[in-house]
């Protein structure tokens, strides 16, 4: 006769308890922000382990750099000198444009934007989960990085800080399937929501009217709605507009201007937003 409380039934009870606990945790974490502190604590405790894990990679890249150091430095200096010349010319143009912009804003009665306060940060690691587009940067609460800060690169928007730890921060890339971003088309000022689809090279605008004036090549920028991102940050370039016959909505596919898979340096916008 089979015993009522056999080993298997004890294991089954344990399984039911574990599954219930896990499902409850998933529900709480995905619907509320109640577990941020748990995440922060765990990440802070794991920080030394993460630093130790980067050592082999850093040592090997240092060794490779050391082996090619002279040629590499000469080559890089030439590139930097050229880039510097170009940037100096651009800066001259920018100064004129800033003055012009300030004058136009004054004439229109629009308040001046708060100066951007950008903090440079290095990407330490990408999530190894193929469906999670998150990166960890080497600046955290101690450097003034807090949740919700926009993260940009030299090419355009990267994403936003979702969890800040003392020495690091997790940045959710705009290509993550859970990321939504209010954007506008630079040419027509048409507003839309750009959603990530879980691919590093693609975001999509959905539920746009079929008659919307968007063509491949149009640039998308942040619209400033949602009060998280300043308006005017370059986001993506429209690659394809799909207008299916009989469907009321068009689908727009765009490629992020920032090469997400090859990111190494980013900047965190620490400004308080527009005044």
């Amino acid at each position: 006769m089979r015993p009522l409380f056999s080993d298997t039934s004890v294991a089954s009870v344990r399984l039911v308890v574990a599954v219930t606990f896990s499902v409850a945790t998933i529900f709480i974490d995905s619907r509320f922000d109640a577990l941020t502190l748990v995440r922060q604590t765990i990440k802070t405790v794991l920080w030394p382990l993460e630093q130790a894990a980067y050592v082999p990679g850093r040592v090997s890249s240092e060794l490779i750099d050391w082996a090619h150091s002279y040629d590499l430095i000469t080559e890089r200096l030439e590139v930097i000198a050229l880039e510097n010349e170009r940037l100096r010319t651009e800066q001259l143009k920018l100064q004129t444009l800033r003055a012009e912009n300030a004058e136009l804003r004054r004439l229109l009665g629009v308040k001046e934007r708060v100066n951007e306060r950008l903090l440079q940060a290095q990407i330490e690691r990408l999530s190894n989960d193929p469906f999670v587009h998150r990166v960890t940067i080497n600046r955290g609460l101690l450097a003034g990085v807090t949740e919700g800060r926009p993260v940009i690169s030299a090419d355009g928007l990267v994403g936003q800080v979702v969890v800040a730890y003392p020495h690091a921060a997790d940045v959710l890339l705009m290509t993550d399937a859970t990321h939504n971003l209010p954007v506008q088309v630079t040419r027509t000022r048409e507003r839309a929501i750009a959603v990530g689809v879980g691919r590093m090279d693609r975001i999509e605008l959905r539920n746009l009217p079929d008659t919307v004036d968007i063509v491949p090549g149009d640039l998308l920028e942040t619209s400033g709605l949602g009060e998280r991102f300043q308006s005017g940050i370059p986001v993506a370039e429209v690659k394809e507009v799909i207008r299916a016959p009989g469907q009321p909505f068009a689908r727009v596919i765009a490629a992020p201007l920032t090469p997400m898979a090859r990111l190494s340096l980013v900047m965190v916008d620490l400004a308080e937003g527009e005044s």
Partner: protein
Amino acid sequence: MIFLVTWLSTLFLIVIPYPAWMTLALPHFGFLFVTWWGLMRNYQLSMTLLLIASLPIDVLYGTTLGLHGLLFALIAYALTLLGPSVRQVNWIRQSLVVFVVLLIASAVSYWARTLTGQSPDLMILVLQSVVSALLWSPLRWFYDVVADYAEGLRAQRQ
């Protein structure tokens, strides 16, 4: 002690930066860790400890907290039931069993991720299961070595 050392080794394997092109073909080290415990040391495995150990793995992968706890519990339960018979067979058959169990876990992962707003690709999850099953044998050897080392350390202390 053995749990701590094997768990830390697993975290280390998860944290090491891999090239972006490898992300799709990486084995799921967390699953293989639970597979080793479920098959080789199930008599020492505690479900509570497993749930606690899964939380840092969620944090490192950036997934919703609790996701790996759910998957670990299912894998551990399935392998604890299968353990005695699977331990006897050769590595090819063991890898096949591991593949089937991880495939079921991947299906649950697909379901849970979809519910939390992600858009997972089932084929990538299947590919991960294939790679994990293929790497089961070397990883099993790795965990055996780590466990022996941890046992040696404990014996030295005593």
